[in-house]
C-alpha cells in the first residue's frame, strides 16, 4: 500500500526505474518520430534539456550523414516491422561531439496493437569502443609486426592443453593454414625426431612454469619433407598478474624460422674450423720447412768448412815451404786467399751460431745478467788493453732466461758497442734496465759511431750491415743472433741511435726481473 502511494502511476514507476539506470537514455517518440519524452540520462548524454527537444524530430541526435542516408527513418520502420531493432552507430550531442551508441528501438502499441510511437533505449559505448579500438589497433600492430618479420604467434591454453596458432605459426609448424586449436602432440609429430625428446622435456617444464622464456631451437618437418630450423620463445600468463609461481594459466609465444641464420652459423663455424685447420697446416708446413732450412744451413755450413780449411791450410803450407820459390806477387795472392778463407770461416761460424741459437732447446734459469756483462767487459778489456772504455754495469740485474743464450746475446751487444766506439779516444758503454709500462726493458748503450735511424730496419737481418767492412769489421750476423735469442724469449728488440752520437739497444724478455 505504501508503494502504491509512492508511485502515482505505473508509467511513473518505469520511468523512474529507467532513469536510475544512468547509462541508458530512454527516449520516446510519436509515430511521427517527434520526441515525446526525454529523461534525465538522455539530458546528460546528449546535452539537450527536455524543453529543447520535446516536439522535435529524433533526427537531432542522428549524424547528418545518417539522416542523408535515411537511416533514422529506416531504423524505426524496421523496428515497426520486426518488433525491435538493435544497432550500433554514431549519434551527435548538442555540442556536436559524437557518441558511439548501442541502441534498441521498439514500437509502443496500444491495447489494440496499434503503434502509438517508439521507445529508443541508448547506451553510450564511446569509452568502451575507444578501448576496444585501442586493443584492436594494438593487435593489428602486433599482427603487422609479426607478419612483416615472419614471426608466428601461438597461445597455449593450459586447461584445454591446446594451441591456438596464428596463420604464420601454423605454417611454420608444418600445419598449413590450420587455425583450429591443436594439441601439443600434433606439433611434436612435426619436430625432427632428434629434437623431440628435448622439446618434450622443455615443454613439460614450461607447463610447470619452469624455464619459460628460454629460447628453444629445433627442426620442423615441412609438408615437402624438408626440415627447417625454428626458434620459439614463450611467456607465461598467470591468473593473478602479480603471482608468478606454479603452473601458468596460459603460455604465449612466438615462433620464427631461423634456418638461414642457422645455416650461416654452421657455415661460419665450418669456415672458422677450415681456416683454423689451414692455419695449423700451414704453420706446421712452415715449421717443418724452417727446420729443414736450418738443418740444411747447419750441414751446408758444416760441409763448407772442410774444403775451406784445406784451402787455407794448403795455402799456408805453400807459403811456409822452404822449397817453394814463389814471387812476392804470388805470395801476396796466397795471403789474400788466406784472408778470404778466414773471412769465410767467420761467416760460416756465424751461420752455424745462428742456426744453433734457433735450434738449441730453451732452458730457463735465474741468471745474473750483471755478472755476465761484467765478465764480458773484462774479456774485452783484456783483449785490447789500450782502449779507454768506461763500463757502467748496473748491479743485480737478474732474469729467468736461458743463461747460455743470454750470454751469447749480451756478448754480441757489448762487443758491438766495443767495436763501434773503437774510433773514439774514450768511450762509455752502459748495461742496465729500466721499467717501462711495468715491464723491465734492458739496454746496452754506447757513445760510439751510432747509425742513421733510417736504416734501423736493416739492423737485425742476418748478414745485413750498416757500416762498410773497412769501417768496422764483422759479418753482420751478431745482431741477427741477438734478435733470435730475444724473440725465443718472447721479447722484442729495438734500437735508437744518431750518427756519431752513439746507439742504444733495448730489449724485453718474457720474464720477471728478479
Amino acid at each position, binding site marked *: 500500500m505504501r508503494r502504491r502511494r509512492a508511485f502515482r502511476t505505473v508509467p511513473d514507476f518505469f520511468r523512474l526505474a529507467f532513469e536510475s539506470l544512468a547509462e541508458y537514455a530512454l527516449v520516446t517518440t510519436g509515430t511521427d518520430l517527434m520526441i515525446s519524452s526525454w529523461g534525465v540520462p538522455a539530458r546528460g548524454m546528449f546535452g539537450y534539456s527536455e524543453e529543447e527537444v520535446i516536439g522535435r524530430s529524433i533526427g537531432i541526435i542522428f549524424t547528418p550523414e545518417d539522416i542523408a542516408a535515411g537511416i533514422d527513418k529506416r531504423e524505426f520502420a524496421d523496428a515497426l516491422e520486426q518488433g525491435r531493432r538493435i544497432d550500433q552507430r554514431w549519434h551527435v550531442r548538442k555540442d556536436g561531439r559524437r557518441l558511439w551508441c548501442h541502441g534498441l528501438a521498439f514500437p509502443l502499441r496500444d491495447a489494440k496493437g496499434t503503434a502509438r510511437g517508439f521507445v529508443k533505449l541508448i547506451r553510450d559505448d564511446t569509452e568502451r569502443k575507444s578501448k576496444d579500438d585501442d586493443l584492436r589497433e594494438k593487435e593489428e600492430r602486433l599482427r603487422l609486426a609479426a607478419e612483416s618479420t615472419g614471426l608466428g604467434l601461438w597461445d597455449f591454453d593450459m586447461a584445454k592443453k591446446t594451441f591456438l596458432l596464428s596463420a604464420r605459426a601454423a605454417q611454420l609448424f608444418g600445419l598449413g593454414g590450420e587455425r583450429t586449436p591443436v594439441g601439443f602432440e600434433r606439433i611434436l609429430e612435426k619436430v625432427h625426431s632428434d629434437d623431440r625428446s628435448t622439446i618434450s622435456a622443455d615443454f613439460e617444464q614450461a607447463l610447470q612454469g619452469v624455464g619459460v622464456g628460454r629460447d628453444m631451437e629445433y627442426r620442423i618437418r615441412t609438408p615437402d619433407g624438408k626440415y627447417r630450423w625454428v626458434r620459439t620463445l614463450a611467456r607465461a600468463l598467470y591468473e593473478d598478474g602479480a603471482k608468478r609461481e606454479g603452473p601458468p594459466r596460459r603460455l604465449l609465444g612466438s615462433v620464427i624460422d631461423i634456418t638461414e641464420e642457422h645455416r650461416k652459423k654452421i657455415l661460419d663455424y665450418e669456415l672458422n674450423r677450415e681456416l683454423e685447420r689451414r692455419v695449423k697446416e700451414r704453420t706446421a708446413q712452415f715449421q717443418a720447412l724452417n727446420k729443414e732450412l736450418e738443418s740444411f744451413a747447419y750441414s751446408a755450413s*758444416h760441409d763448407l*768448412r*772442410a774444403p*775451406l*780449411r*784445406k784451402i*787455407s*791450410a*794448403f795455402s*799456408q*803450407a805453400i807459403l*811456409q815451404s822452404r822449397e817453394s820459390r814463389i814471387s812476392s806477387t804470388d805470395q801476396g795472392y796466397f795471403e789474400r786467399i788466406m784472408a778470404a*778463407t*778466414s773471412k769465410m*770461416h767467420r761467416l760460416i761460424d756465424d751461420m752455424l751460431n745462428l742456426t744453433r741459437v734457433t735450434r738449441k732447446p730453451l732452458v730457463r734459469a735465474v741468471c745474473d745478467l750483471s755478472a755476465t756483462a761484467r765478465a764480458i767487459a773484462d774479456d774485452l778489456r783484456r783483449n785490447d788493453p789500450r782502449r779507454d772504455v768506461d763500463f757502467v754495469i748496473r748491479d743485480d740485474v737478474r732474469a729467468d732466461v736461458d743463461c747460455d743464450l743470454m750470454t751469447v746475446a749480451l756478448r754480441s751487444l757489448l762487443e758491438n758497442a766495443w767495436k763501434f766506439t773503437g774510433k773514439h779516444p774514450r768511450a762509455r758503454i752502459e748495461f742496465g734496465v729500466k721499467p717501462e709500462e711495468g715491464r723491465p726493458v734492458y739496454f746496452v748503450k754506447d757513445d760510439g759511431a751510432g747509425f742513421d735511424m733510417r736504416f734501423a730496419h736493416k739492423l737485425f737481418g742476418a748478414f745485413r750491415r750498416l757500416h762498410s767492412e773497412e769501417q768496422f769489421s764483422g759479418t753482420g750476423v751478431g745482431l741477427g743472433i741477438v734478435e733470435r735469442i730475444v724473440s725465443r724469449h718472447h721479447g722484442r728488440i729495438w734500437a735508437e741511435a744518431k750518427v756519431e752520437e752513439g746507439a742504444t739497444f733495448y730489449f724485453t724478455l718474457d720474464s720477471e726481473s728478479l
Partner: protein
Amino acid sequence: MSYILLVDDDRDDIELTMLGFRDEGFKCEVAVAHDGKEALDFLLAAYSAHRPLPAAVLLDLKMPRMDGFELITRVMGDPRLRHIPVAVLTSSGHETDIKEAERLGASRYLRKPTDLKDYFLIVQEVKALMTVKTAP
C-alpha cells in the same frame, strides 16, 4: 819403436795432419787406415802377428764402411785392444758428437785446425796420450 794409427778417409786431411806434425817437428811414425774397418783389421792383424800395437789411435768420425763411433766401440769392447788410447780428430764441433765419443770411451776430442800453426796443440795432446802406459 812407438807409432800412432791415423784413421781418416780424407786424403787431404791426412796430408795436412802429416804436414802439421812435420812443421811441429813431431817425428813419430804414423800408420794410416782409410776407414774404421781397415783400422780394426789392421789392429787385429798386428795383435795376431805379435807386431807392436800403436801407442794411440787418432780417428775421424765420418767415414765409409765403419765410422769413428763404431771403431771406438769395437776397440773399447775388445780386451786385446781396449788399452790403446783413442782420440777423435774431426772437423765436427757438434755437441752431440763430442758427448757420444766421450761416452764410448774416447780420451780426447780434437778439432782439425784451420791454421797449420794450431797443429802444435794437436801434437801436444797426442804426445800426452802416447805417454799413457798401459799393459797390452
